[in-house]
């Protein structure tokens, strides 16, 4: 039994997922109130270099060919063994395609309590979860003895989970990973052809304010810098400045990105109804009374042509 906070690192094809760093940052806050260490748990195969920038006191590394890629079965077995042996104060999982397959199963298998959709921890170590589409927050004491927690982004900055100081890497024994019921066959790359804007996490959306087709390139540049996709409101699609697959609105697609960044969109109801599920809306418009500002989290009253190129440059520098 320790007061350590474990973070189950998520990685996919050689890339550490952003949520892992967010959890490292969260764990630091929790470790301070619990009085333990921040310990990253890395499962993989020949993957220890992934740990180089973890802001952790220690990295427990479980190396096994069956852990090279995520499969629920193998990861559950390896983690069950580790958690049972070490009994940390808490284990953080991403509320993601990887972490969600692990936490609930381990809660039953190890008879440990689980708190899900946690966004942050309070100074005195309580978890704060965000549910019901962001409309409700739920707070509770971190359950004992070992709390399993799934985490959503929003409460911590991923850069706080990174360090230039490589952490100590401690290999741990991996239990027998046999009788696995799930096998990875292969990965399927996103289909060529046009993207499904309903599934994209970052959308740069242009309205009439973009003025002509050539100016779409400005939005494209910003989207490329941010790793997003350009969408448009009806007038833009009608003018064929963008293909109809990029239409956001009543007659187009309903979207739910993490960031919906609008350039020259006023926010007609037909457009707004399709974007209300977005996590964060940032709006640039010259009209301070544009209704888009009523639903945006951040607003800028400015001519988009004054801003977009400067912003694109700054984003590139920040990357």
């Amino acid at each position: 039994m320790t007061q350590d906070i474990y973070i189950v690192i998520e990685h996919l094809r050689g890339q550490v997922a952003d949520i892992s760093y967010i959890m490292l940052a969260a764990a630091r806050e929790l470790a301070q109130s619990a009085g333990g260490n921040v310990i990253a748990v890395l499962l993989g195969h020949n993957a220890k270099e992934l740990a180089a920038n973890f802001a952790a006191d220690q990295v427990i590394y479980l190396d096994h060919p069956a852990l090279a890629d995520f499969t629920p079965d193998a990861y559950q077995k390896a983690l069950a063994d580790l958690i049972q042996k070490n009994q940390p104060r808490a284990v953080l999982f991403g509320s993601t395609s990887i972490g969600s397959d692990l936490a609930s199963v381990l809660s039953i298998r190890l008879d440990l309590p689980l708190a899900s959709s946690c966004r942050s921890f309070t100074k005195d170590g309580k978890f704060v979860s965000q549910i019901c589409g962001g409309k409700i927050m739920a707070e509770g004491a971190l359950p004992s003895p070992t709390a399993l927690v799934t985490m959503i982004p929003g409460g911590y900055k991923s850069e706080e989970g990174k360090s230039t100081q490589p952490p100590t890497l401690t290999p741990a024994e991996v239990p027998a990973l046999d009788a696995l019921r799930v096998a990875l066959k292969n990965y399927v790359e996103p289909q060529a052809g046009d993207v499904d804007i309903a599934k994209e996490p970052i959308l740069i959306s242009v309205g009439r304010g973009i003025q002509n087709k050539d100016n779409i390139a400005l939005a494209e540049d910003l989207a490329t810098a941010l790793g997003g996709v350009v969408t448009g409101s009806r007038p833009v699609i009608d003018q064929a400045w963008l293909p109809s697959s990029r239409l956001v609105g009543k007659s187009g697609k309903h979207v739910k990105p993490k960031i919906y960044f609008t350039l020259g969109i006023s926010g007609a109801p037909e457009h707004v109804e399709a974007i209300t599920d977005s996590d964060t809306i940032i709006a640039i418009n010259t009209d301070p009374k544009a209704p888009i500002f009523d639903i945006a989290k951040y607003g800028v009253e400015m001519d988009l042509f004054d801003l977009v190129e400067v912003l694109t440059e700054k984003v590139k520098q920040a990357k």
Partner: protein
Amino acid sequence: MNIVVLAKLVPDLVEELTIDANGNALDSSFARLIINEFDDHAIEQGILLKERGGGSVTIIAPDAEGADDVLFTAAAKGADRLIKIKGDFSNVNNHALARAFAKVVSGIKPDLVLTGVQAHNDLDGALGPLLAELLEMPYIGYVSAVSINGDKVLIKKEYPGGLLAEMDVQLPAILGIQAAEEPPRYVAVSKVRQAMKTSSIEEQDASNLDPCGGSAIGRMFQPEASSHATMITGSPDEVAEKLVGVFKELGIV
């Protein structure tokens, strides 16, 4: 192929949500309930599998206002058997719900169990993986395609950015459906009415509603909603700088 689909009802976010007098749970008396949207996809995927390869589809829902509608609508779509679990499910957690489902599901001996990958009010994990472990079945979530292949299913699991993993799962198994291969179909009101006349709902009692394994909530509250955007001001350079700060905070640069 004996397919079971679990459907639960959740508060409809179209309505304002309220916290109960104790301050640590949703006021269930005021909430309007609606099928968990992912469970709707799970039902659709179950029906698609049946249409493609035969078999039977059983829908199980815990008792709540609107559960009968959910079950009869599923019957109108092509479900064969409807089961309602009786008990007081207001404000029970998923651990308790999973235990109630476990008893009913194990009695059916399914080959495949489908459920929505999550629900917006999950506070102690998702129903699917909890149930899977109680029944000692393998579980995969975030599934958006399923094909049955002998004693296995080949599934597609979604990762961020449109990447998919194809995985083989041994049956019997439980899948958490992110999206059915086709959007849930529309059933005309007259067809639902027809189903109400021709199909029946079996009722089974919930054995135990043991919430052990969930986490106690001390306080629930509503985050303060800002009715107007926080305006970022300054020169284009300054505004760009501040926006990059926002992007960093949101973890995208």
